[in-house]
């Protein structure tokens, strides 16, 4: 089946005014090792940059990181921007230290799912957990 030999394309970046570069570097490495084509737009990426990169590369998913606490403000409206750009159905994942202060994770997760993300990940998630989810969500049973 064609689907099984296709390489999945992921747009990866750190949103807003956030400059945390280390995890971004590790994710790029881990996702590439797992066989994905990774379009890494790096740190301090705007919502427009995420959506434009996804449109240009016909990406399968957008992966948003936020480590500095402004994630709640920065991520709001990303799904709507994707819809406007005609890629409204693209899978969206978000992870990191998404809010200011220690808050109940279930509440935080709900907030981001409500915003239009398919999945949200708490601090300390290992790259492999997200890799497994992405493959499953996109209909792959094993490593692509």
């Amino acid at each position: 089946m064609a689907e099984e030999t296709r390489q999945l394309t992921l747009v990866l970046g750190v949103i807003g005014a956030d400059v945390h570069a280390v995890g971004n570097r590790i994710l790029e490495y881990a996702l590439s090792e797992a066989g994905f084509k990774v379009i890494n737009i790096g740190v301090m990426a705007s919502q427009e940059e995420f959506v434009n990169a996804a449109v240009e590369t016909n990406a399968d998913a957008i992966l948003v990181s936020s480590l500095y606490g402004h994630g709640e403000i920065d991520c709001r409206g990303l799904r709507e921007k994707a819809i406007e750009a005609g890629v409204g159905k693209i899978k969206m994942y978000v992870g990191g230290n998404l809010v200011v202060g220690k808050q109940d994770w279930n509440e935080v997760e709900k907030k981001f799912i409500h915003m239009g993300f398919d999945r949200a990940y708490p601090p300390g998630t290992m790259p492999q957990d997200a890799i497994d989810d992405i493959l499953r969500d996109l209909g792959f049973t094993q490593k692509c």
Partner: protein
Amino acid sequence: MQLINKKLDWDKFMELRQGVLNTWPTGQEVDLEEAIDYQSKLPQDRRFASKLEAAKKEGITLAQPRAGVALVLEHIDLLQYLVNEGGADLLPTTIDSYTRQNRYNEAQAGIEESRSVGRSMLNGFPAVNHGLDACREVVEAVKAPIQVRHGTPDARLLAEITLAGGFTAYEGGGISYNIPYAKDVPLERSIRDWQYVDRLVGYYEDKGISINREPFGPLTGTLVPPCISHSIAIIEALLAAEQGVKSLTLGYGQCGNLIQDVAAIRSLEELAEEYLGRFGYRDTVVTTVFHQWMGGFPQDESKAFGVISWGAATAAMSKATKVIVKTPHEALGIPTKEANSAGIKATKQVLNMLKDQPLLETIELKNEKDLIKAETRAILERLLEFGEGDIALGTVRGFQAGVIDVPFAPSRFNLGRLLPARDHHGAVRLLDFGNLPFGDDIKDIHREKIATRGKAEGREPSFQMVIDDIYAIGKGMLVGKPR
């Protein structure tokens, strides 16, 4: 005009100043002479530089947290709590990330949303938006000196407002607040903008108002070898001193191996004195700051206290003048005031228990100091060559060539070819030297030490080893073991 390390002409400064103060309405509130008058009336116990000098003379280590929230009254409440309950010796005002990127409109939206939802939506205090009077309200409300801590490549307006607002210390520098904190800001620009900040501080000094300046030591906080952060600290010390700065605190972020960390703090102070003296800056006072582990933390709070306490112990044993304290919420982001205060208490308990114990003196410590000094001198001397004797010019050219290189930095003006990894004893060494100007004598020491670890773990040193090291402390170890 070519960038050089030369004191900014006052008329030129005043010309630039008009533009700086016009970038946001609160800039108009600043009147330099009135600001000097205000600063001169602050009580001695609010002055950062004198408290640091006293601690250095006494041979003790002061504890300082990081903290900042969006709204003024909540920020005051936070700082008061950290002094009264936590026992902080020195206070911060950490600035939010929008302000750091000069995105004052977004900071304003963050302030308004914080008001409406009743909790801070920003990761710091937006001092530019709040303006002069709010800064003074903060300074007058707490009985400890306060430093502005941020991560701002262009921090000129923030400096104007906060120094006029009564803060007595200002963190940052043209390299240390650019390379780890920005993606697209040319070094020429950030160094120039920080010459402005240092010239402003120099002007306060001329008028008898001492403002402490602190280059940001830990850089990316991720396996940064001491020679890299030392080189940058010393460059920024030379740049600041040229503009008239007299009180300098140089920093280093904990790597985790006791011998390396103590050697780093001791050698940092000695190297700084050496270079400041060589370039004729003889009346600057150098103190040191040790940052507790800046990398990934364990989520478990008890384990986090273990990391915090080890940082406190190392700070005390290295006789650093102050230590920047982490909190048990570190793995999860911005801490509550209770968690922040708990970190300070754990730290001070250890500092107090160790303050009377003498400095370590062993052959291993001497060897490590000698190695750090040789590496740092190699980098600085090559930068001076590149700049034809001028350190500002040499720095810009040196970054292009990768003669100085910061691991894991977001800036595209950093070559990013270094690959650090821990050796068998947990000290941070280099797996890939990039273009650092080291001779084989230095390189062989690194290669041998990393090879010893590779052998013990039965694997070839590679990027996977580096990743394992980055996650290690969060997972309860120092040296990252194979999965």
